């Protein structure tokens, strides 16, 4: 009978803690959003399932000797996984629209205001009893406004590993909500006339420009902001694999095998950080509120900068494309396209929005570099 007791003491029923049950429900909720609502399923499904697995009592799957815990320490703590994903993003991204019209980088810059406004908001939350964010925490939370998953995970793993789970969940959730969050803000800030602007065709881009592009971006980064060099460097390396045209094998590996394998591992590993004591805290609520704020402010400042460019160019730039500056590639660009079509059924803004869209990726990597350099130590 001793064995029966041992067996009973090793069951989940005998060991479940209230918080674990709640976290399993949270994990199932994430999987539900991923499958039924198509919320960034490539990340949220593994994160949700990883959360469920790690909150099973006794098994310790998320612990230091468990599968997910080991994956976390090898791939996330070291920053390797987000960087490899960034390489894949670079290999998947066509920067042609940005090269053809570099001025759209300013839209990508403006949209990063969402990050820094959120930083202030996070610190201000400390006046509310129960919140106690450090500058590092606030920086990691703020990067949600960058609307860029790997950047957020990379920064959070460096500045606030304890908040990583909540930050990653918030980042991907809000990216999925871009089609809901952005349009009202875009419509509120623009006139119908502005939304109807048909933009000039983009000029063709030569292969030489595409090959030089990674080096120009990386050179600037090396000179001004080396703390952003790992992110920008791997993004540009991936892009060079793609554009060089001589390493097709490697480009395909970066775009498929590597990014797919790493995405599974990264998602599971992040899920393992969704434990009750860290996720079921007041901070998470604050992070979710701040994240929504970040996206909204970023969208707004992007559109406002679009309006400035509309004026400055005598009406040649459709201010809607500023909303794509938050990144969330390619969802934000598609939202721009849709809102543009609503105003003028013959106005296809997709290609024009791709410029600010990919500029937003560079912009939030730069912002991450600043935060690392100033709040990092």
């Amino acid at each position, binding site marked *: 009978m001793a064995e029966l007791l041992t067996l009973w003491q090793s069951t989940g029923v005998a060991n479940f803690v209230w918080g674990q049950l709640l976290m399993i429900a949270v994990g199932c909720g994430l999987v539900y959003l991923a499958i039924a609502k198509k919320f960034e399923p490539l990340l949220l499904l593994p994160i949700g399932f990883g959360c469920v697995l790690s909150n099973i009592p006794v098994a310790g799957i998320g612990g230091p000797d468990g599968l997910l815990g080991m994956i976390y320490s090898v791939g996330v703590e070291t920053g390797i996984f987000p960087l490899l994903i960034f390489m894949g993003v670079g290999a998947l991204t066509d920067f042609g629209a*940005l*090269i053809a019209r*570099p*001025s759209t*980088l*300013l839209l*990508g*810059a403006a949209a*990063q*205001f969402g*990050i*820094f*406004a959120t*930083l*202030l908001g*996070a*610190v*201000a939350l*400390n*006046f509310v009893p129960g919140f106690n964010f*450090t*500058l590092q925490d*606030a*920086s990691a939370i703020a990067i949600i406004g960058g609307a860029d998953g790997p950047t957020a995970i990379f920064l959070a793993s460096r500045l606030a590993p304890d908040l990583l789970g909540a930050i990653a969940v918030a980042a991907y959730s809000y990216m999925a909500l871009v089609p809901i969050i952005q349009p009202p803000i875009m419509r509120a800030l623009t006139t119908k006339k502005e939304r109807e602007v048909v933009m000039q065709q983009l000029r*063709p*881009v*030569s*292969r*030489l*420009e595409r090959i*030089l*592009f990674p080096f*120009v*971006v990386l*050179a*600037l980064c090396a000179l*001004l*902001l080396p703390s952003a060099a790992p992110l920008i460097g791997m993004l540009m390396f991936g892009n060079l694999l793609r554009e060089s*045209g001589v390493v*097709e094998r490697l480009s*395909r590996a970066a*775009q498929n095998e590597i990014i797919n394998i790493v995405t599974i591992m990264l998602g599971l590993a992040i899920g393992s950080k969704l434990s009750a004591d860290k996720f079921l805290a007041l901070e998470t609520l604050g992070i979710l509120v701040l994240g929504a704020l970040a996206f909204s402010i970023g969208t707004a400042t992007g559109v406002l900068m679009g309006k400035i460019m509309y004026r400055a160019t005598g009406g040649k730039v459709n201010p809607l494309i500023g909303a794509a500056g938050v990144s969330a590639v390619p969802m934000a660009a598609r939202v721009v396209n849709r809102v543009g079509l609503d105003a003028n059924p013959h106005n296809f803004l997709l290609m024009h929005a791709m410029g600010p869209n990919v*500029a937003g990726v*560079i*912009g939030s990597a*730069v*912002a991450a570099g*600043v*935060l690392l350099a*100033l*709040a990092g130590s």
Partner: protein
Amino acid sequence: MPETTLIADSLSLMAIGMGTVFSFLLLLVLLLKGMSWLAEKLAPGGVEPLLTPAQVSRNGQTADAELVAVISAAVARYRSHRRQ
């Protein structure tokens, strides 16, 4: 650290941060314009010299291959459904 110091710190971080982001991307605008000018100098005629049609189709190799695979599978399924 008392909250007010933190607020001050984050305000200066915001100012410096947005300043850096804007300066960085503004400089990048200039550099990219310079780069395009240089590229045109080095290889006049834009796309052509380096990117012949043959090369374009070779670039699109993988997407193309997947597309063909997807379409053939779809066609096969469609046919099998109609036959029954």
